[in-house]
């Protein structure tokens, strides 16, 4: 059987509707403008959800340093903490950060929607072509045989459509991991900057804890782990100046505050205060200001 252009257009709208619902589930209704929300409601999409997982990630990583005891370990714990007075950072800077995170997620999800639509359309077109060519070769086929061929083609089409879920789920996972990592980096840097309000960021030192096992890629090892197994220490200004590796070729990747590369499950950026030394594993020990200057010079900070 051949799927008509009319049905294909209905399918495009179904895909669009479901990806918009996904965005509302992930980012809350604020991810869309009022005008867009009105259009979605008219199309039958439930836009009542206000909770944003992205906002949850941001506030969790702004409020809780890796070494903090008793920090939330689940979504429910995070909500409980953030629903308390003072549980969420307030102010324009944070609102802007969340708007940026939402906007980034929306753009990337739009690309995924377009990819999913193209994949599904391609499966349908291929099926149409197969049936058409088969029909051309069997013009005098009896009606009953034709019906059986149509049913078989329909079965193949449904199977092929369901098989697109593997690629779609994998692509979504990549986006979700990368954007979660970007948000973790942004929120932890925001906390460090807020803690150093009068400081020159050239004088603020930071590092990232990596797991350092065989599942760590060469980039994370090279950028964040020193030869003695301790984390590499950077000036915060350096990481911020490096911006993002998004869209760059691998040989241009640099140490950054967000996701180093797609699929990275990064940890926060952690501050190293003067007088402290970072140990393998990311813990810190106090060495005093006398030893601090030698330590920082020997650490070859960039």
């Amino acid at each position, binding site marked *: *059987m*051949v*799927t*008509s252009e009319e*049905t294909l257009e*209905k*399918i495009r709208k*179904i*895909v669009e509707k*479901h*990806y918009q*619902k*996904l965005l509302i*589930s*992930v980012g809350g209704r604020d991810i869309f403008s009022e005008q867009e929300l009105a259009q979605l409601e008219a199309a039958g999409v439930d836009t009542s959800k206000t909770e944003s*997982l992205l906002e*949850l*990630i941001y506030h*969790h990583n702004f409020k809780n340093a*890796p070494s903090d005891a008793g*920090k*939330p*370990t*689940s*979504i429910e*714990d*995070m909500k409980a903490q953030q629903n308390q007075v003072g549980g969420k950072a307030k102010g324009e800077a944070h609102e802007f950060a969340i708007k940026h995170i939402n906007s980034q997620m929306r753009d990337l999800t739009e690309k995924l929607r377009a990819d999913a639509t193209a994949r*599904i359309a391609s499966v349908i077109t291929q099926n149409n072509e197969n049936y058409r060519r088969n029909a051309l070769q069997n013009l005098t086929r009896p009606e009953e045989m034709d019906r059986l061929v*149509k049913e078989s083609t*329909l079965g193949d*089409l*449904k199977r092929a*459509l*369901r098989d*697109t*879920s593997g690629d*779609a*789920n994998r692509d*979504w*996972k990549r986006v*979700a*991991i990368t954007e*979660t990592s970007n948000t*973790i980096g942004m929120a932890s840097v925001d906390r460090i900057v807020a803690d150093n309000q009068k400081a020159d960021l050239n004088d603020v030192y930071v590092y990232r*804890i990596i*797991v350092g096992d065989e*599942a*760590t*890629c*060469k*980039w*994370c090892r090279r950028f964040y782990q020193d030869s003695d197994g301790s984390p590499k220490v950077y000036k915060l200004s350096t990481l911020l100046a490096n911006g993002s590796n998004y869209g760059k070729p*691998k040989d241009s990747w640099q140490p950054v505050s967000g996701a*180093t*590369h*797609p*699929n*990275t*499950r990064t*940890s926060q950026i952690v501050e190293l205060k003067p007088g402290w030394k970072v140990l393998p594993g990311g813990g810190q020990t106090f060495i005093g200001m006398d030893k601090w200057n030698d330590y920082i010079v020997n650490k070859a900070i960039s």
Partner: protein
Amino acid sequence: MAKVKIYLEKGETIEDAEMQLRKALDLHDSGDIHERQDYVDPAMQHIMDRLEAMHEEMYKEMMSEVIQEIDKEYDSGY
């Protein structure tokens, strides 16, 4: 220059070993090796699990609707 010693299993050729070594190096080179990791922060891992589940559920529902449309067309005798 670094050297690598390769021990071949019975029946394994040097070409097989070379291919496996290249695959391993590519995996580390691409960053996709991280797919095996969880987030160190359990709260972030919980979020990731939820995000993955949301998409899987959405895609299944979406596919059901897509297939319903196709069935409608087939049943109408197109």
